[in-house]
């Protein structure tokens, strides 16, 4: 039981709402907002150390696959509904806690939140205080999702993220299009998330038996799920196929409905069309937060709920379908990024491409793939955040950046900015030694055990990824000395200031650290992944007999 968790969720919420209520005129509140965000960052670091320091939980006792290592679940935190299910009144305990994966994403939220808030003070010209307050509220909701250990609070925070985000898009986006774009974002997300609640209710109600009231606790649910899935897989030899398919069919609708919701948040290929509009219309500083953390909600949901709770049904059809979609998304995103000229759009589609790798890793359902996906969530968050922040700085100095103005030659005008841009582009392209490489390699290693074809497509995607990355660098940074062709010559207001440079350097250090010493972050999530794999891998193998063929053919 630790007070760190409620503090993490409530601190930004209370400060955010407080600032919002006090009023947007008081400029002195900027410091308070920044301080709160810095404190959240510090707390998220502290939480990570606590998780690292706590004893590795023993999964053998309860059989659960999701066990928080730091927990906050007091007795009084419950919800009672005026209905009863299966003879038991509905009385659900809400639990909060962090395991390794959760702690990693909490840290990501802390870092990205702090950096985007600092940058916002330089970027946002109007109603800065309200903007910061909304950013704080968004952070609180995001932390709530990552720290929740039951279906209900997960869903509540998952939905509640929408409200501040819509306001951020509406109030500080591209004026002409922001209303239409935020409406599209709202409806698109709701199409996924409203049906999702039915799937979550389905999971919760299935846990109710005559002797056991329904529960929403992920720990209990995962134990129940593991027991029933393994019982089906290890049934009498002649009966395995039958019992597996019965269980898989029973959960099938839940899986599809959850994947629709998470897939839309994740912007997997046919469900991605909200993403380019949202990313290009919102202020780049907002986009940095959306692209790096909000888009991870989908991945987190799959790794937290779909894979541990319904692995058999997932592997029946959806595993291969989503794996394929992920592979195609990598290539598709990269190709579209190559053909766009607006830098915002290029980055948006590159994000689709990168998310493809995460999906690929998730759908391999083995330990390499899942670790790759979890690490890549963090890495992609850091890299995208930096790229969008750099974009914001460029736009502040020069207006919209188009790759069609060939030979912008900005490197000679903004040398520091150019260095950072090259660094993060290379990290995104997956250069060994930087963090992008670790996640992509692991995801592909995982996938090759499941499907050689998808991995081959993904490899093509990495080449294209390097291509569009270098195209950005070439067109924007190099080619001329910059003076002659700059349309905004009069407005140029110098290279990066210290307040802009330092956060970027810090982010770069994180990239470098994970790239050089991936083991440290792997240690953090290793145990959680191991437990999830103990149920997901047998499920995948029970359904697809050809998994691991490549590995077996070359002993």
């Amino acid at each position: 039981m630790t007070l760190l968790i409620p503090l993490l969720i409530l601190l930004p919420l209370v400060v955010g709402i407080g600032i919002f209520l006090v009023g947007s005129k008081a400029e002195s509140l900027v410091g308070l907002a920044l301080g709160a965000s810095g404190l959240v960052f510090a707390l998220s670091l502290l939480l990570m150390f606590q998780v690292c320091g706590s004893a590795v939980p023993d999964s053998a006792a309860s059989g659960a696959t999701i066990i928080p290592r730091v927990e906050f679940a007091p007795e009084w935190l419950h919800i009672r509904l005026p209905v009863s299910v299966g003879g038991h009144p509905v009385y659900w305990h809400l639990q909060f806690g962090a395991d390794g994966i959760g702690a990693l994403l909490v840290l990501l939220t802390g870092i990205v939140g702090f950096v985007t808030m600092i940058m916002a003070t330089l970027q946002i010209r109007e109603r800065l205080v309200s903007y910061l307050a909304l950013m704080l509220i968004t952070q609180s909701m995001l932390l709530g999702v990552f720290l929740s250990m039951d279906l209900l609070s997960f869903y509540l925070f998952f939905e509640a993220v929408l409200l501040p985000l819509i306001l951020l898009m509406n109030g500080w986006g591209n004026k002409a299009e922001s209303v239409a774009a935020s409406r599209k974002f709202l409806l698109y997300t709701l199409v996924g998330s409203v049906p999702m609640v039915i799937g979550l209710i389905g999971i919760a109600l299935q846990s109710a038996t005559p002797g056991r009231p329904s529960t929403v606790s992920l720990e209990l649910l995962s134990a129940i799920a593991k027991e029933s899935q393994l019982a089906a897989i290890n049934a009498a030899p002649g009966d395995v196929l039958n019992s597996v398919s019965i269980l898989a069919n029973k959960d099938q609708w839940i899986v599809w409905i959850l994947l629709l919701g998470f897939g839309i948040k994740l912007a997997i290929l046919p469900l991605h069309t909200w993403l380019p509009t949202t990313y290009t219309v919102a202020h780049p500083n907002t986009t940095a937060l959306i692209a790096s953390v909000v888009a991870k909600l989908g991945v987190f949901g799959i790794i937290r709920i779909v894979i541990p709770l319904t692995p058999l049904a997932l592997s029946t059809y959806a595993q291969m379908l989503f794996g394929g979609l992920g592979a195609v998304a990598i290539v598709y995103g990269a190709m579209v990024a190559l053909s766009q000229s607006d830098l915002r759009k290029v980055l948006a589609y590159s994000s689709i491409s990168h998310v493809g790798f995460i999906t690929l890793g998730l759908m391999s359902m083995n330990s390499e793939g899942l670790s790759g996906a979890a690490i890549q969530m963090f890495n992609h968050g850091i890299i995208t955040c930096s790229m969008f922040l750099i974009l914001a700085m460029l736009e502040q100095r020069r207006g919209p950046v188009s790759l069609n103005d060939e030979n912008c030659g900005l490197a000679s005008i903004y040398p520091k900015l150019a260095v950072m841009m090259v660094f993060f582009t290379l990290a995104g392209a997956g250069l060994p030694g930087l963090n992008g490489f670790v996640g992509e390699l692991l995801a592909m290693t995982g996938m090759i055990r499941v499907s050689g074809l998808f991995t081959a497509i993904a490899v093509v995607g990495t080449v294209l990824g390097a291509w569009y990355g270098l195209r950005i660098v070439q067109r924007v940074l190099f080619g001329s000395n910059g003076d002659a062709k700059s349309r905004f010559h009069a407005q140029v207001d110098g290279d990066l200031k210290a307040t802009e440079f330092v956060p970027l350097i810090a982010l770069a250090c994180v990239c470098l650290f994970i790239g050089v010493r991936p083991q440290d972050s792997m240690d953090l999530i290793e145990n959680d992944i191991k437990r999830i794999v103990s149920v997901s891998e047998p499920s995948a193998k029970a359904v697809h007999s050809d998994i691991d063929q490549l590995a077996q053919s070359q002993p």
Partner: protein
Amino acid sequence: MAPAITLILGGSLLLAASLVLKSGKARDVHGQRSGMAVASLVLLLAAAILGWIRVVPDDLGQGLFRFDASALASERLALLGGLIVILMSWSTAPRAHLGEYYGCLIIMIGAVPIVGASNDLVSLFLGLELISIPTYIMLGIVKSDNAGAEATIKYFLLSTFASSFFLLGISYLYGFVGSTNLQVIQGNFATANRLTSLALVLVMCGLAFRVTAVPFHFYAPDVFEGTSLTMAGIMSYLPKVAGFVALIRIMGTGMNSQTLEIVVPVLFVCSALTMLGGNFFASAQNNLRRLLAYSSVAHTGYLMLAMTALLRENADPNVLYSYLAAYAAMTLGFFACLGEIEAAGGKTQLVGDLSGMFYRRPAASIGMTVCLISMIGLPLTAGFWAKFLVFMGTVAAGTKDPLSIAMAILMAFNAVIAAGYYWRVLSKLFENSDAYVPLRVFRPSLFVAYTICVVLTVVWFFVPAVM
């Protein structure tokens, strides 16, 4: 029965008072207005206290009325709605007909618990008519222009038409069992035949009009457009509560599979048509009143889906009551906000009239925002739990029948369509412009009305058990 009797007797007294009120040359309209509203509130308070101190016996008996959980829930819903509606009426009631207006209103409020407690077809019909007849009078007196007259005639004709459907249905039920007692009728459901199903479908048709279900919804947009805001609020709430309570009363539990095979698909189709129709027509509307009418139709669709779960799973009728409570808070709250804007001199006929309202009338706009978020069903509002409970009931029924889950998913997509037009209204409120004149007239009663609604909407999110 004490609360209902108090309300109906009190209502009759107020009706009688109208004779006195009109005489006298120097009549003090403002004083009368406040006096009547306060008198109504006192009646409501008396009814609430009488209901609160009532001791419910263990043996509920077989008589004309039964005080089970449904009866108590419907009483609470009626008193809650009544409180808000009377506060809304305080400054908007027609000055020339104060006595008639409040008398009819109080009788309507008192009739809902009668429907809720009825254990007999006759008393049930009596309760339903006690709601309908005052509605005709009120529609006639709140607005005397052409649109108002059209609304009145339309509602009157269609309502009597629906009542005859209902009567035909219950006459078959009587013919089948030989008794008008609902417990006896339900005891015979186990041996029901196709004729019973026909009777039940006819009853549903009759009640579908009261709850504005497709295809009996056509009057709703015209009436909402033609009558006053307060009256539209009343029409969207009280008849709906009565209709659903009556449905729960008659359908009850214990149907055999043969009856369920007919009744449940009819309810499914009706519910699907109602939510799809309501939402699609509402999305196409620029007229705010008609939009609200169709949105109320859509909510009926969700409630009918909850009804199917209730019939099959013997689930708690609490799903419906919680939904209706949340619905009361958000819909009546929204109407109260609109009422305040109108009282202050703003226009509320079209969606576009609300443009930039946040800068003209911040308090009412924030109230509307909360109500709209609740109608969309997002967290931090009671509307979230309302939809959540319907989903839960349907999924519980879906363990045996996949169609039920499919209906839940259809409802989820409908909620998204609805979010589209609610968002359209919501974003209008915050539209930016400098050229707006602030509205400064302050109506305390309307302010209190929507404050209650907003507070309830938010509080119920945190303690859904008391909804």
